[in-house]
């Protein structure tokens, strides 16, 4: 029987391998996203502190991370840090560090934007009711900040998931790299395999990102 391109996916353990690759992708992105949300919230609050040195530090960090391509950051941490300080970092830890550094900067800027976008009158009308600063932040500012953060932070999560495909350059085998390996190994037998494998990778990314986007849309409508 003539093999169609599609059957490349079901030959041997090819599909299982793709799923294993996806698992690596998910591990890196979800751990980094989790850490980025924690540190990013703190970083965003730090950015609203009215102190010149704090602001200069935050500006420097944010722009350094933003200007550097993630690729360069990966090289810098994986090869640079190892050489310079004789610390042995696995590719896995390097990836987590880089994506957390990046996510913290981006998330921080989102949090800062959300906090300063709350009109000062909201603070004043809460203060006029006799609420303390802590009460104002907890009951009035924070809930509004979180609602404003949903759309942009979901956008950041999906961006981070997609960008993790870069980690193959420091030797990690995630879903995209797995796909390339499968294509290379079957090049003779399945000349049109690339289309099917990349198609499968596309579907896997979609299946991961789509529910997240849907959830965001639902929350936004609920909290409009």
């Amino acid at each position, binding site marked *: 029987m003539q093999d169609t391109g599609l059957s490349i996916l079901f030959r041997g353990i090819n599909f299982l391998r793709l799923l294993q690759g996806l698992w690596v992708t998910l591990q890196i992105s979800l751990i980094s996203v989790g850490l980025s949300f924690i540190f990013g919230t703190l970083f965003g609050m730090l950015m609203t502190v009215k102190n010149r040195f704090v602001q200069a530090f935050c500006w420097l960090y944010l722009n350094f991370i933003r200007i550097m391509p993630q690729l360069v950051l990966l090289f810098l941490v994986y090869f640079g840090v190892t050489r310079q300080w004789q610390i042995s970092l696995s590719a896995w830890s390097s990836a987590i560090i880089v994506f957390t550094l990046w996510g913290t900067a981006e998330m921080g800027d989102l949090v800062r934007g959300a906090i300063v976008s709350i009109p000062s009158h909201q603070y004043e009308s809460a203060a*006029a*009711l*006799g609420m303390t600063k802590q*009460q104002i932040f907890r*009951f009035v500012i924070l809930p*509004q900040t979180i609602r404003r953060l949903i759309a942009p932070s979901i956008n950041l999560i999906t961006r981070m998931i997609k960008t993790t495909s870069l980690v193959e350059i420091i030797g990690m085998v995630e879903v995209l790299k797995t796909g390339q390996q499968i294509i290379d190994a079957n090049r003779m037998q399945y000349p049109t395999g690339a289309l099917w494998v990349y198609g499968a990778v596309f579907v896997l990314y979609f299946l991961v990102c789509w529910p997240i986007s849907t959830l965001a849309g639902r929350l936004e409508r609920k909290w409009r």
Partner: protein
Amino acid sequence: MTDEILLSVKDLVKSYEGTSEVLNGISLDIHKGEVVVVLGPSGCGKSTLLRCMNGLEEYQSGSITLDGEKITKNGANMTALRQRIGMVFQSYELFPHLSIQDNITLAPVQVQKVPKEQAQAEAERLLERVDLLDKRTAYPRQLSGGQKQRVAIVRALAMHPEVMLFDEVTAALDPEMVREVLDVMLTLAEQGMTMVIVTHEMNFARAVADRIVFIDGGVIVEETDPETFFEHPSTERAKQFLKTFTFEKKA
């Protein structure tokens, strides 16, 4: 109205950083149960005066006291003092993430530790008074401007303040919604609430005020009963100001 002085402003001087004085020596006593309406052209400092009275602004010298207790922006007992002073703003500033009922009960429950059921019952009673009981589960975005402002008044009243400050509360409203808000304020005045009102509604000022305070250039220019102020203003500045509210067809 009684002789008892509730809120007292003495020689108040206030300037924003790098500008000349906004308030230049204001002295004003508000008696218990009195309704004082503050009038004046834009930028005369009347809103600033009101904001100082609630500790929302710092001031350079002079003093503001409520029952003898000093009001300053970062004063130690400001949260306690503010519970006794209700304030309503031009832009309503309801909390958009909370239902109308939760907007009203948030401060009583969190600040005054009133049991939730009791605060809710109180909110319903107050909403009934302003004809908005059916909106208690709605959110601010579903209300008209006039309705929002009535909720903002109720929210302040739920703290049982001794004095209410109104900062141009109808300035942002469509004309047909102004009335419903002013009616609520008139009723409050009749019930003996102590009120300080900044407004541009001259007919309303005349109807509600026990005393008119006319401010211009950061000082009190004229201070008298409404009848005298509107019929026989004694200063040239007040006459000019009142003229801007009358229209005549040009020949």
